[in-house]
């Protein structure tokens, strides 16, 4: 009964807070800049089929065409239209970024909350997280990506695993603070189950830092995916991944600079948009949180 009242008023407060957060975000310059960049990229990615060109169609006679009215970003060594390939690359990169952010966010949040709630699991889970962080994230992803084979989903899994530990640590830290608050004590005394405490209290209270972290993971994942593709451990060619296009265009870079130029801009823009979005979310949701990676 007592808990119900607390929750009811809590929900009203939460609703009002959500409204205030939204208003603050709409007035936040870097958040809106990031939002517009990401929105434009998503729309561009979704509109890729509208060019009416097959991104993998080779036309030998049209090789190495510089940017023109017909081929806005030029063509590559096989005569493929780079504008179309870059748009399809946006689909691939944004999908990988989103999947990595969601996957590492969900698993990381689960591990973080479990560690905070069950002290016995804590030391084991945290040692595993430490072990995953023992090597640089990109190196771990290279190893995992290679082990899982050259496919899009293995890149997603590899990058998600590499970023899980930091997310787990952030959620755990937030949940440990929440656990000490009085209303959790009240909930526990009134017989709330561990599950209820974790999902009703610990997790919602960690949602701000979790969202911020996931946004930055999205940005990192876009950069890391491109780097993996560049090394040769990404989605296999002829997949129009931005990293692949740059890797393939690299050997022709001196004469046909445009091949590798535009996909690089696309990567930069996507990462920039997500970073701006993350900065805005951090300022509004969790001003004390420092940049994490």
């Amino acid at each position, binding site marked *: 009964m007592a808990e119900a009242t607390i929750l009811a008023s809590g929900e009203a407060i939460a609703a009002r807070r959500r409204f205030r957060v939204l208003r603050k975000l709409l007035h936040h310059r870097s958040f809106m800049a990031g939002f517009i960049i990401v929105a434009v990229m998503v729309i561009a990615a979704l509109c890729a089929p509208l060019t009416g060109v097959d991104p993998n169609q080779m036309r030998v006679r049209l090789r190495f065409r510089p940017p023109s009215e017909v081929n806005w970003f030029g063509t590559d060594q096989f005569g493929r239209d780079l504008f179309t390939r870059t748009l399809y690359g946006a689909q691939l990169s944004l999908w990988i970024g989103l999947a990595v952010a969601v996957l590492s966010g969900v698993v990381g949040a689960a591990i973080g909350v479990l560690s905070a709630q069950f002290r016995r699991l804590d030391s084991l889970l945290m040692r595993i997280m*430490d072990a995953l962080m023992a090597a640089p994230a990109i190196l771990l992803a290279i190893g995992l990506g290679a082990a899982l084979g050259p496919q899009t989903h293995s890149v997603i899994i590899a990058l998600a695993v590499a970023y899980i530990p930091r997310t787990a640590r952030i959620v755990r830290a937030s949940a440990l603070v929440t656990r000490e608050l009085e209303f959790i004590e009240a909930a526990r005394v009134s017989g709330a189950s561990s599950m209820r405490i974790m999902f009703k209290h610990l997790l919602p209270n960690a949602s701000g830092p979790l969202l911020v972290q996931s946004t930055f993971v999205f940005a990192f994942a876009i950069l890391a995916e491109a780097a993996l593709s560049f090394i040769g451990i990404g989605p296999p060619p002829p997949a129009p991944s931005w990293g692949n296009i740059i890797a393939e265009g690299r050997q022709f870079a001196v004469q046909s600079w445009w091949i590798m130029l535009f996909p690089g801009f696309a990567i930069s823009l996507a990462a920039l948009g997500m970073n701006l979005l993350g900065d805005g979310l951090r300022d509004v949701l969790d001003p004390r949180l420092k940049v994490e990676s």
Partner: protein
Amino acid sequence: MFRGIMMRLSQAVPVLLIFSVMVFMLMHLLPGDPALAIAGPDASPEAVQKIREQLGLDRPLIVQLLEWFSHLAVGNFGESLTLKQSVISAVGERLPVTLSLSFVSLVVTLPIGIGLGVVAAYWRNSWIDAWVMVLALLGVSLPGFWVGILSVLYFSVQLGWFPPSGYVPLTEGGVGPWLASLIQPAVVLALFQIGFLARITRSAMLDVLDQDFIRTARAKGVDEWTTISKHAFRNTLIPVVTVLGITLSLLVGGSVVIEQVFALPGIGRLIVQGILNRDYPLVQGTMLLFGFAFVVINILVDIIYTIVDPRVRYG
């Protein structure tokens, strides 16, 4: 402090154990048969089987794992399958390259990254702050390998200022050629770290500048430069030092990719080639050495932390 270090070391043991098991399992997930890779595509099934037995790959995984551990215990990191040399010597050969690259990059990163953060915080909300933050944001948003290629196109191909690729050891050409071969990759590598550190330093410095003790210093008649350099800066370093481990991790991770761009024969290239050649003892051993290195680095970071923050020093 000594006790603190011992405690950190004892905590590191299970971490390294879990890490090495993970690395071992990872390498045995690698698709493709190393025996087949060594024997070549034309070898007979019998020959492949023979190599497999020689390498002990036909035995149960747990036996292989225990054997690997027993070798590690005596400092034997195994033999490379493709390089005809031990993992230790392969790593030893390439370590100076990666260390040099990381060192030069760090020397570029620390003063610029921290300096930009301090400057941005001191002149907060001014045009200086705005520009520094835009640069920092670009630093963490531009893909290093792409910037590297563009940089080679411009500074090496177009202007001819730096060699486009390759490494000149310190022992061969002296400091000049060594630095010339490293400065371009090191700066490209530093861009991300500079952006990362500048952002962290700025927010740490902003926190410190709002503290009461800064007002106390000004009330004493301390000038602005001393207020910043003596009173604010040391306090700013505390949170910056905590991310030093992450910075180094990002740096070494980034060097793996940058070594590909500039064809530097470092550990990053070694490990990528090992993966592509299914040379699992090599990858396994190198990864493990990375793990050891970062355990040591993180302990060093903790020591620096206790030097910077007297509150930790006394516990």
